[in-house]
């Protein structure tokens, strides 16, 4: 009888149990330390440090949101992490993965190998290598045309942008953009490219391959990211150490935040905060975009890629 009462009462007990909250996590790839720092965004404390093999630089969330793919270029592998817990699910041996991203339809995974001058196109479902393209010099970052038929790759050593057809898996064209191009995004029919050897981002028309304008943000223009709500673009410069907010319609610089330490990659938190790695300082910064104020947290050496896993409430 007592046991029956307990069984009947257990759903009520479950309902009465307080909801367990999973905190917002920030993943930071320490390229100089062969490790990944997992930071609790609320407490700013490092919760754990995941060992990598050699040199982790970039990461991307799988299209279904289930896996965080972390590329270890020096270790020749990609490992798949549960973004909610930081647990490593599996590893795949891949040749020198540096920057990586999925095509908009999620069917292909494209990987740039900076050191080996190659761009690889993989079938996303099983990581079968479909094509390996030998590129001139240092393929760095990439952006896709929204229809997923073309990927644009910056060639850091050549000072160019190359377009690669994902239908024929062959290079289409290569056009000069400026010294040591790095980050690149597709924005309203244009390509915006960080020209690291200069003080500006170049706006390239992919149809004419002409540079239509320059966006001055500071020496060592590096990467650029689109705010999730589309109301701003955020760009970094690594020499002048700046974070710049750019108007998505006019492409004018709205404001510049001085951020010592060499800001590099950016991730956006659901509360609007901007997290960025400070490459030379061994730190990350959490920037409040409303006030421009920021705080820094020490992580590993040469932090590069960064990702924010939103918190959630588990009932």
């Amino acid at each position, binding site marked *: 009888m007592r046991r029956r009462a307990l069984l009947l009462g257990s759903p009520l007990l479950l309902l009465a149990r307080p909801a367990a909250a999973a905190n917002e996590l920030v993943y930071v790839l320490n390229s100089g*330390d062969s490790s990944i720092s997992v930071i609790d965004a609320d407490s700013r404390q490092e919760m754990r440090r995941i060992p990598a093999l*050699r040199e982790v630089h970039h990461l991307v969330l799988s299209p279904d949101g289930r896996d965080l793919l972390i590329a270890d270029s020096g270790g020749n592998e990609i490992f798949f992490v549960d973004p909610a817990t930081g647990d490593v699910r599996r590893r795949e041996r891949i040749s020198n993965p540096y920057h990586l991203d999925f095509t908009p339809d999620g069917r292909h995974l494209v990987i740039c190998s900076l050191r080996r001058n*190659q761009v690889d196109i993989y079938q996303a479902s099983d990581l079968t290598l479909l094509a390996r393209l030998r590129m001139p010099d240092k393929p760095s970052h990439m952006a896709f045309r929204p229809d997923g038929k073309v990927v644009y790759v910056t060639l*850091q050593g050549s000072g160019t942008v190359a377009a690669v057809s994902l239908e024929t898996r062959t290079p289409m064209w290569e056009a000069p953009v400026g010294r040591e191009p790095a980050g690149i995004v597709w924005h309203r029919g244009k390509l915006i490219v960080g020209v690291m050897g200069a003080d500006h981002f170049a706006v390239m028309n992919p149809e004419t391959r002409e540079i239509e304008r320059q966006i001055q943000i500071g020496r060592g223009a590096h990467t650029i990211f689109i705010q999730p709500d589309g109301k701003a673009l955020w760009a970094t410069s690594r020499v002048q150490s700046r974070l710049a907010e750019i108007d998505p319609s006019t492409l004018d610089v709205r404001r510049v935040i001085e951020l010592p330490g060499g800001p590099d990659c950016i991730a956006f938190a659901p509360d609007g905060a901007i997290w960025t790695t400070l490459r030379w300082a061994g730190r990350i910064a959490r920037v409040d975009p409303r006030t421009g104020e920021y705080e820094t947290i020490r992580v590993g050496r040469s932090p590069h890629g960064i990702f924010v896993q939103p918190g959630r409430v588990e009932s």
Partner: protein
Amino acid sequence: MTESITHTLDDITAWLFEHIVQPAMYQLGLMDWAEDAVDWIEFGLFGIFSIIVVYVVCRPLEAWWPVEPVTDRRAIRTDILYTLLTRLGLLPLIAFVLLNSLSAWWEGTVADSGFVPPTLENLIPGLREMPVLAFALYVVILDFGEYWRHRFQHSFRWWWALHSIHHAQRQMTFWTDDRNHILDEIIGALWFGAIALLIGVPPGQFPLLVLISRLAESLSHANVKLSFGRVGERLIVSPRFHRAHHGVLSAAEHGKNYAVLFPVWDWIFGTADFRRDVFPRTGDPEGPEALATGGWVRQQFVGLKRMAGAIAGRSGN
């Protein structure tokens, strides 16, 4: 303490790079190499730190119980120059510039073949969770590779022509460790690259362990009458063990005690000399005087000339 030293070196590196090196590289149009520059600053700072540590440990030992009196300070000054050029990164930087394109081509060629070079952690998955053990295993395997490279340096006439620079020193001290021909260093880098193709490169986050191995290598050249005892002599290369290798009767193919860190390789392959009371004079009586007492440039030139002669089948001197 290790963490605070590392953080201090990192902070100095960051400041130097951000305020001096990176702005200069930007002006010179060298931003393509910015990330490599950080590595080189770290290399140089760590080099300074390791020279200080080696000096603090080895110099008092040499003063306390020397094998022989110092009679040729000029020869030691040449060795100091070798050490500074190597440890502060200048010679490795030249090798990097010379080999970088070759390295990218080679890695691309290997990738095109479909072979993805493994790491020890791929081969032994349990090592993933034990990075210090993984590093130690790399040290052991690479030391085995160094044993054989060292034997080949003594076996091939053209290679001995380069390596004899290292053996020509009659006033051997802890500074002698880096006394090598630049071409010999490049061959060493290629040798290391070949092994890395099979087992990967060791993880780079253990500066303390690297420092200890450097200290052991420098100490093995020190002018100190020190043996590590019956057991210790078989575990780690001592000043006594390595001095026997540098002895005047051990030059070229007559060599003994080739090991760099672990004498076990000499033990296994029958090249060990464990006599603990033998501290011979060092030098290469058959080598030209320029290799013993010439300056850095002259030694490099003569070494190259001798190598060319050896390849052409002429007398080595």
